[in-house]
């Protein structure tokens, strides 16, 4: 008998939602000592399924049909009180954002020991001892029990969360996108840790993810969800090697391979030359001493027409600061940014404004990069208007531009909230292209998008780059994405360039240890 057996689970959404049922007839078994992955895009119902097992569905959302048997007991028919006792003891859960799940004003030792004392009658000292042992097991032996969450890195916080989840030795651990907010090397460590404790403690794990790479590395069996239904499930090797459903095939095909590798542009005609760029951030106010962090340290690079230069690195590597210094959203402290023959690094804003149309930017967050109160049309013509273009002419071009990015010109009158994330990124791209720029800076333009949408937007960016002979600076934390779209790659760490070269060379024969570590951490590298 499997540990968990979900049979025909149907969860209804409140009226007014975009569909009536969050999940429809979902059946899934989680065997003992097994890692099961549910994989799907946003809105597929994968998180709802996990929350239904925990008995923690959001208000207004209810399981209306089916059964969830946990060791023979139907969880859906348990009184709330019994479910409360099961949570933590039988089933534990970890979440995507450990900072939001930890109490910021309590030391981590206290938080873990409180979790223990909520279910077991032990003294505070004993609970603290147990907490210390658990945290040690999570590889946090050197961290003080008195440390506060803000003093830890994202990966360390997630380890604390796992320690809390494991404190009562649950038989099932549900991990809802546990590594989505983490850097790739940290992600690899956390996944390894989850696999390790699963084997050591002989637990079952239900892992929710959107990443087939993670599935390939972790899962014994996998279920693919779409629109609230399981479209395919089975042993991982079988589903990945021989997917039977068209949607599974599309999802697997959309995973960036880290292997397409465009050849470098034969002759680089530089349009941007960055020389010895340095940026420090000062902290503290008027009367405090002002320690500084160096976000960019002596960075030099060249960007040529018609090529895509990738800047890769983990969070805090300075890649976004570099982009913002080049486009002068930040003022660099030292160094040059040459746009052909003009140095714009220290130019005054009035002199810079006419030059701004030559460098444009696509932003990361599709939900905050468009003005929520401005129609698409007004957003698109704002740039041309600022540069004195005739409004009627700009409106006509806006319609053409929407066509170019794959949207109907009829959407000009609509407001941003009516569009999906992928569509918004297209609008953001159109807004940037309205100024006919020579340089396009794309700051993590696809990292907030689902994998199939991501593939479409990447293809669009590449097409546009080709058509308009753009020089594109592509900032990303995802090596796989960089491999797919970039001719050359710059690897950054702690504000410095670790390595640069053609994408092909860097992926085939990385010179620095750091690049090697980044490449090794790519999930599912061997399997996919």
């Amino acid at each position, binding site marked *: 008998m499997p540990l968990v057996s979900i049979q025909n689970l149907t969860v209804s959404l409140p009226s007014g939602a975009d569909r009536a049922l969050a999940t429809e007839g979902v059946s899934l078994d989680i065997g003992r000592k097994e890692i099961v992955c549910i994989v799907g895009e946003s809105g597929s119902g994968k998180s709802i399924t996990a929350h239904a097992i925990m008995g923690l569905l959001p208000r207004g959302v209810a399981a209306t049909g089916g059964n969830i048997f946990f060791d023979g007991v139907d969880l859906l028919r348990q009184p709330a009180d019994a479910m409360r006792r099961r949570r933590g003891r039988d089933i534990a859960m970890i979440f995507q954002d450990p900072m939001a799940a930890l109490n910021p004003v309590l030391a981590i030792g206290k938080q873990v020991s409180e979790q223990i004392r909520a279910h077991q009658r032990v003294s505070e000292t004993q609970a603290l001892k147990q907490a210390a042992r658990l945290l040690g097991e999570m590889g946090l032996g050197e961290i003080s029990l008195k440390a506060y969450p803000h003093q830890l890195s994202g990966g360390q916080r997630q380890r604390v969360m796992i320690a809390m989840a494991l404190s009562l030795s649950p038989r099932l651990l549900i991990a809802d996108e546990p590594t989505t907010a983490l850097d790739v090397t940290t992600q690899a460590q956390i996944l390894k840790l989850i696999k390790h404790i699963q084997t050591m403690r002989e637990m079952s794990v239900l892992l929710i993810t959107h990443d087939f790479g993670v599935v390939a590395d972790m899962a014994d069996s996998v279920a693919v969800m779409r629109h609230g239904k399981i479209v395919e499930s089975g042993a991982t090797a079988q589903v990945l090697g021989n997917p039977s459903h068209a949607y599974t095939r599309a999802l697997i095909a959309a995973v960036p391979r880290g292997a397409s590798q465009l050849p470098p542009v034969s002759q680089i005609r530089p349009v941007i030359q960055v020389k010895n760029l340095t940026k420090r951030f000062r902290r503290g106010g008027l009367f405090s001493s002002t320690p500084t962090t160096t976000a960019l340290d002596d960075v030099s690079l060249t960007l040529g027409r018609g090529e895509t230069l990738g800047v890769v690195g983990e969070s805090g590597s300075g890649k976004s600061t570099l982009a913002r210094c080049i486009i002068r959203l930040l003022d660099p402290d030292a160094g040059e940014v040459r746009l052909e023959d003009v140095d714009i690094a220290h130019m005054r804003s009035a002199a810079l404004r006419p030059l*701004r*149309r030559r*460098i444009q930017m696509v932003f990361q967050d599709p939900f905050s990069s468009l003005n*929520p109160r401005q129609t698409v049309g007004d957003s698109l013509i704002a*740039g041309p208007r*600022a540069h004195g273009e005739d409004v009627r002419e700009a409106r006509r071009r806006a319609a053409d531009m929407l066509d170019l990015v794959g949207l109907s010109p009829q959407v000009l009158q609509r*407001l941003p909230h009516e569009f999906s994330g992928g569509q918004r990124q297209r609008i953001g791209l159109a*807004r940037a292209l309205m*100024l006919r720029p020579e340089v396009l800076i794309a700051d993590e333009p696809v990292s907030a998008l689902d994998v199939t949408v991501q593939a479409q937007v990447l293809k669009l960016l590449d097409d546009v780059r080709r058509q308009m002979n753009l020089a594109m600076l592509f900032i990303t934390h995802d090596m796989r994405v960089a491999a797919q779209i970039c001719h050359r790659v710059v690897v950054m760490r702690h504000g410095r360039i670790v390595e640069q070269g053609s994408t092909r060379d860097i992926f085939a024969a990385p010179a620095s240890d750091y690049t090697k570590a980044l490449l090794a951490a790519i999930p599912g590298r061997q399997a996919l």
Partner: protein
Amino acid sequence: MGFTRRFLCRPTAMFGLAVFLFIVAIALGAPLLFSRGPFSIVGMPLLPPGASGLLAGSDVLGRDMAVGLAYGARISLLVGIASTVCAAGIGVLMGAVAGYYGGWVDDLLMRVTEFFQIIPSFVLLMVLVAFLQPSLASTVIGITLVTWPQVARVVRGEFLSLRAREFVQAARVLGMGDAAIIATQILPNALPPIVVISSMIVGNAILTESALSFLGLGDPNLLSWGSMIGGSRSAMWVAWWTTVLPGACIMITVLALNFIGDGLNDALNPRARR
């Protein structure tokens, strides 16, 4: 669905607007509705409502309360609206500049704002009005001076958070100037709290004017709801209508304005648009 339709769909907003327009109509139409002025004596003092054909009775000096309430609405509304417009204007300007530019500009403007905030506002107001001689203008100036810091604080907070949003950065990248970014990108998104706080300030200003008039610091040549309450306070226990009726007028007006503010807030929210 248009903005007006969305606003009018809300029963409380609709009610608030109807009541407010009714009060405005009475205030504007006072000279047409009543042949006598608010200060003329019509009969015995302290007649209850309904007696001798007086709709709202008479006050301690035998003046028609109904006429007083209608004329008082003019002053109360004028003070409320004029000081709100002034306070919102100054507050938005200061808050926008402080929040958008940040740094030393922000520090300087916020210290000025705090200077006004740390002084007990009603004491400051009384000193100001007494210093400038009690008049309609000095009341409006005084209320403006003690109210604009609230607006500035709210607007600054909104600007601080909005200017970090990517669409504002995008506007800078597009080459838009600071004034255009403030006016077309940030301000429309900061409007809901400004509108709501303004509707509350109108109510507050009416109350403050009443308090000043009650203390005898209002314009002695004009009758307002506050001065009616102030003048009748000795008769409060023998003739309830002399204080309760102007008090009820103040309460209903403030309530109507709050309903309007709530309705505007909801109607201005782009997510509600279908």
